[in-house]
């Protein structure tokens, strides 16, 4: 606290002034040395920082992979630098701005261009000698390319799908839908039925409007897409309004949690999903999250195709690169960094540890190698991916710069609609204008 009147303290006794100067100087030295940099040690060992996001189990397996790599490559030391998803991007942005970006990092589709376009990422073609990209699944091989440069290489393959808990369906006495024929109307009806049959004990489905990836499928089913090749909005207002109307219907008929409940569920991440806490029958997630959610739920969650895949104009589901490995443009040791990425990507031993945590491995040989040893849930998602592969029409153009912000816009607009501040039509309008600003603004 600040001094305040009349604290009545007697004056401090005089001390040796030199001593206090020394104390002051000492403090400065302490501060200054704390800012010391890292880099390569004297003994010829190159030190590299590897940044990733995730939950605890990913941190421990990644550390095991690092240990393995270091044992095989005694000339390189990998310093782990991990955090959760939300904190990751703040941290990466600030450290990149401070010219202190991690040498190797995991990236995501919506942010890759943001960094690549501003010259913060290394063109991986430059280190082609150390990094072999020949075995990458052609479906995602070029997903990290931008204007002829490769800013990231896909870690694995993913699809956005519906996760369903058969136990919850049984409890409600509702039959599991046939995902090769179900429509969006079925989806609404079934969800409402579950909530009703269990008297609200179980909720039909977790709100889907919090993630624009689901809308992307919906738009594709209507022959549209979230973004066009040139980065502009690729869908019509009617389609988006229809999408929001599905959620509105579920809010009205009780098929999904109330607005306030949804806010809490979303804040908790996958661990707090209605499936993980056994409070609901369905939720929308990425296939690589099946393992984690099955584990928290303690039951065998199943994967379902999106509704409307066969009843709409065309199929909308797609494969997405789960994440990317990228190398900082500012790294002092691009070749060593590339060797580590090569290890993460192409080594069977690394894959045996990582398994399907970063998506089903992008390297097709490696994928083949671990397929047999996948835990049950991951094996199911691998099977699911191969089942839907034939129905997938095409890939998505890379999201425009600013797409990272769309995550928050989606969330906000959904909330405002759920709390009754916006109608589906108004929500569609607001979403479009905000996304347009976000993706053209920078």
């Amino acid at each position: 606290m600040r001094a305040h009147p009349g604290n009545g303290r007697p004056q401090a006794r005089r001390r040796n002034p030199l001593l206090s100067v020394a104390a002051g100087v000492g403090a400065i030295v302490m501060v200054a040395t704390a800012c010391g940099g890292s880099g390569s040690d004297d003994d010829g060992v190159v030190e590299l920082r590897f940044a990733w996001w995730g939950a605890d189990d990913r941190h421990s397996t990644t550390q095991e992979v690092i240990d393995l790599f270091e044992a095989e490559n005694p000339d390189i030391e990998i310093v782990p630098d991990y955090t959760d998803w939300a904190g990751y991007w703040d941290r990466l942005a600030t450290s990149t701005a401070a010219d202190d970006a991690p040498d190797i990092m995991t990236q995501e589709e919506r942010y890759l261009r943001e960094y690549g376009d501003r010259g913060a990422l290394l063109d991986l073609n430059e280190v082609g000698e150390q990094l072999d990209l020949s075995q990458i699944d052609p479906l995602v091989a070029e997903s990290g390319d931008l204007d002829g440069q490769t800013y990231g290489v896909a870690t694995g393959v993913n699809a956005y799908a519906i996760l369903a808990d058969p136990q919850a369906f049984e409890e409600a006495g509702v039959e599991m839908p046939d995902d090769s024929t179900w429509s969006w109307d079925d989806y609404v009806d079934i969800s409402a039925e579950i909530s009703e049959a269990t008297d609200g004990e179980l909720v039909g489905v977790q709100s889907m409007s919090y993630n624009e990836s689901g809308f992307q499928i919906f738009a594709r089913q209507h022959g549209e897409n979230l973004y066009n090749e040139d980065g502009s909005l690729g869908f019509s207002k009617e389609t988006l309004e229809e999408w929001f109307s599905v959620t509105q219907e579920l809010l009205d008929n009780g098929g999904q949690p109330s607005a306030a409940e949804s806010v809490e569920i979303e804040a908790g991440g996958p661990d707090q999903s209605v499936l993980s806490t056994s409070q609901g029958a369905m939720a929308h997630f990425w296939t690589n999250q099946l393992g984690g959610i099955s584990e928290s739920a303690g039951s065998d969650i199943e994967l379902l195709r999106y509704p409307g895949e066969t009843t709409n104009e065309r199929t909308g589901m797609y494969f997405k690169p789960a994440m990317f490995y990228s190398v900082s443009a500012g790294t002092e040791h691009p070749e060593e960094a590339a060797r580590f990425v090569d290890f993460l990507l192409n080594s069977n031993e690394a894959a045996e540890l990582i398994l399907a945590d970063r998506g089903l491995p992008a390297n097709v040989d490696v994928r083949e190698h671990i397929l047999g040893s996948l835990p049950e849930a991951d094996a199911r998602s691998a099977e699911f991916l191969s089942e839907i592969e034939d129905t997938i029409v095409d890939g998505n153009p890379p999201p425009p710069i600013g797409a990272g912000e769309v995550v928050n816009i989606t969330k906000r607009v959904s909330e405002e609609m759920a709390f009754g501040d916006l109608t589906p039509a108004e929500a569609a309008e607001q979403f479009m204008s905000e996304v347009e600003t976000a993706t053209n603004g920078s």
Partner: protein
Amino acid sequence: MSALLQRRPPKDPQNTAAPKPGTRAGKRPAQGRKRRENLAAYGFLTPWFLGLVFITAGPLLASLYFSFTDYSLIGDHNWVGLENYERMLSDERLFSALKVTFVYVFVSVPLQLALALALAMVLDRGVRGLPLYRSVYYLPSLLGGSVAIAILWRQVFGANGLINQFLAFFGIQGEGWVSHPDYALGTLIVLNVWTFGAPMVIFLAGLRQIPAMYYEAAAVDGASPLRRFWNITVPMLTPIIFFNLVLQFINAFQTFTQAFIVSGGTGGPSDSTLFYTLYLYQRGFGAFDMGYASAMAWLLLMIIGGFTAVNFFASKYWVFYGD
């Protein structure tokens, strides 16, 4: 801020904080000693001074410069003149952030100060174990801005939190307070009011400065307790009230941590806890719009500066310095 209080030393001569020139060090063999004392003072001040230049003034000026550029945090930037400031005029979220912040400041600060004064007066009546109470009440001020408390708040006011369990005891089904746009800001206001300890300690010190003889004289004249409060305590305390007001205003305008943690960094639900600083942070670090964020920072500085200036101007009419 503390200069403000020292400008007029309190009446009580025994408790004069700053010695008047000449009372102590002014006597003879003092010249050399004085220089040495100055040297010592500068020695102690050096870390602070370096901090001021490198950690405060440097970034401050840099942000002024960046506010006229399209700086994106990564890569190059170009001079764009007043564009960032012009964009603010049509930014709806900026206005909603201002609204949230103003509501927060103008509701929570008066409540907090009223509570602080009330408790200070209770404690001033000579409670046994005063140091203990003082510490206990002061504790939230130390913790209030911390991440841990914000997380705790989220739990306490959550759908299955302490508050709702308490309400359930009476058969009331409570809301998820932090997840409802009508109540989320309220929980943060309560959090700020709860940190009344810091102004309370200052009020307590101020109350002790009021000479008892005024009260005695008033009591002899038959003044009621309420009358004594309005005509002695309040006027004598106005400098302290003013000090607390200015300080808490400035603090409240810059609230960030609590809103960030309670809303998970989103300012939600539906932007109901989108504080100005939180929006600034989102622009700068989420949307890579650091030029705009810098301009926002300067607008905030001007707003706070403006309010503080008004505060100081108005103080001429209501603050009583006893002369």
